[in-house]
């Protein structure tokens, strides 16, 4: 009885539209060095049909095909760059999770530095301007008393 139920359940699960999973044992290459390169490469390639997942993480069939493709290319002796170039020719820059540095993306890569520089520049200028202005005006005793009174107003 138990066995029959188990078998039925197993069948049910097997027949269900099973999604392929992220990297599967049968994909793994025998050479651990090549496999490590394959994993590193796949982590940087986008699964084209998913939302922001690398092909290394994705369960989609396309991701599996790409993982297999990457491994075939590695087996054939291609360098990482050759494989990336091949995939970009086929699918465009969209496949690279790390966008290439080029005309359309210089603003993207430059943004952090530009913002940091701009922020630093604003700070520098405002300091110089502040220095040239009146000397420090901290909260005076009277103002401080007003503040305290305001905060403790209630209940008194």
């Amino acid at each position, binding site marked *: 009885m138990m066995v029959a139920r188990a078998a039925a359940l197993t069948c049910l699960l097997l027949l269900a539209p099973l999604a392929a999973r992220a990297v599967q044992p049968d994909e793994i290459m025998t050479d651990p060095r090549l496999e490590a390169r394959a994993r590193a490469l796949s982590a940087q390639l986008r699964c084209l049909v998913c939302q922001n997942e690398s092909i290394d993480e994705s369960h989609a069939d396309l991701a599996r095909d790409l993982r297999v493709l990457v491994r075939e290319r590695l087996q054939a002796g291609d360098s990482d760059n050759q494989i990336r170039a091949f995939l970009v020719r086929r699918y465009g820059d969209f496949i690279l999770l790390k966008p290439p540095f080029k005309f359309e993306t210089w603003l993207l890569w430059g943004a952090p530095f530009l913002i940091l520089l701009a922020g630093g520049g604003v700070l520098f200028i405002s300091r110089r301007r502040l220095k040239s202005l009146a000397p420090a005006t901290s909260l005076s005793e009277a103002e401080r008393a007003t503040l305290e009174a305001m905060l*403790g107003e209630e209940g008194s």
Partner: protein
Amino acid sequence: MIVETGHYALVLALALALVNSVLPVWGSVARDQRLMAVAPPVALMGFGLVAYAYIALTMAHVVSDFSLVNVVENSHSAKPLIYKITGVWGNHEGSMLLWVLVLSLFAAAVASFSRSMPEDFRANVLAVQSWIAAAFILFILLTSNPFARVAGAPAEGNDLNPLLQDMGLAIHPPLLYLGYVGLSITYSFAAAALISGRIDAVFARFVRPWTLIAWISLTLGIAMGSYWAYYTLGWGGFWFWDPVENASLMPWLAATALLHCTAVMEKREALKIWTIFLAILAFSLSLIGTFLVRSGVLTSVHAFASDPTRGVFILLILVIFIGGSLALFALRAGGLQQGGLFAPVSREGAIVLNNLLLTTCCATVFVGTLYPLALEAITGEKISVGPPFFNLTFVPLFIPLFILMPFGQLLPWKRGDLAGVAQRLAVAFGAGLIFMGILAAWRGGPAVSVILSGVAVYVILGSFVDLGRRLFGGGVSTEMVSQRARGVPRHAFGTAFAHAGLGVTLLGLAATGWGAEKITMLTPGDAIEIGPYQLTFESVVPRNGPNYSELAGRTTIRAKGEVVATIEPAMRFYPVRGMNRSEAGIATLGLGQVYMSIADVAANGAVNARIFWKPLVALIWIGALVMAFGGCLSLSDRSFRVGIARRAHKARAPSPQPAE
């Protein structure tokens, strides 16, 4: 019937929000006490009505009222009760209702707990909060009505997405919303300050506890979300730089910066313009996040264009609120007198640097998230900006913050002595270096992990240097220490814990470098080694849940021959949606975790397994808990409890305020 009253309550709430949008502001301009006094009770009533609407929707989900579109699409009669309740916010309409609920909750909280606030200021804060509430209730009623009925109710619903049927989902969105939407109150404070021209220490003092509450919730919410992704998505990742995650990270970064610079504004009357700007920015980022997540623009610009009603509406709200507040800001900020001067090497200086780095980090995440959308919209070219980009830009920007943190804590206001502070931090710094050395010699592993671990140790110890000196500075008898501990304000403890928490998280992140991963086929009886443990895959057990069936792979974990844990990673099948979900088996051993997920169960019981050993991984989330704990400590400090003025006044009376 209950459903209709809920719908009606929401419409009434809109009416009240409109009342509160006008009368208090009018009152503050006309100096009419009676009009200003309208704000608090109306805010409370508005909250009551939205809460009623929310409960009505929850009731419909609980009793599986399939005459509601929302229930049909997201529920199933066999779904466990807890997921019927959490499923309310597991969909667009319900989550927007939760959004408005939190919004009005904060308005009600300000109405109840800020009686000591200047009246015109409070009236304006509540009015601005009502503007936001009105806009979003209108959004719900016009584009995303959760109370819509369906003609010819079906007998069964479509069930909730299996990924969302999980305890993590139960806790994560409400916390996240408390933080996300809680920032609306800082926005309202900033806008009200601009309207009433009250941009001073009083503003800073009143806005601080609210910012802190939002920050604590946001910290916990993000951590919970990351843990949820970690154990449900099945490949052991916990942060993906996904746009949805970035949408919550940006407000967190802005809120963290705001938390620090309100301190400067309160204590030193400096950075006024910047503080107001940050307060506006933090909530604007929440709005942008809501737009990104809710409009469908993320999937593709084209998906957005195909059904633009919701997206355009939120975009409109976004433009009005961000644009309006920035215009107000530009109008008022020019006339502001900049307050206290300070030397570059000082607490203020450190906080300015902290703000510069945090906002740059925030801007980087912003650009990285939106650049592909902008590029596609302009040139039609599609690019991806993924984790490698953020790891190369965000991380190097964030690391200096870790180095800076203990310095900032030790520097005095106005003018500090860098060499002196460095000297006091020598112990923490040395400990970090020694830790690095030991790790490198003993474990080896990736250099980044070794270095970051050392930095983490430095941050954790450095965070407590100030407290250590205050408590153990002269003589270490128990009595003296406990006496001194009473003299140290709670927010000093809070700061130390919050900073140390970040260090703890960093240690957890650094330790990922020593993890191990195995992907292999296992048949029952197989044994495999991972990290310091031996796993035995015992058997595959079929089971039935309330609305799913599963195959669980029972696995025992042994350390040196002794059984230390049993895990049951499972493949679940949800028949209603025809979807599979893997349920990871996780054993927490010490601070590390053995993580296993299975897939593709064959007839003979063989499975494809992914097994990880993740040393110290629990620290990532424990660190967030420590941060939140530090936040709560600060919140309990009496200098923060502006709301309960009576008690604070009494407490202040006998003993003088501790010197800063």
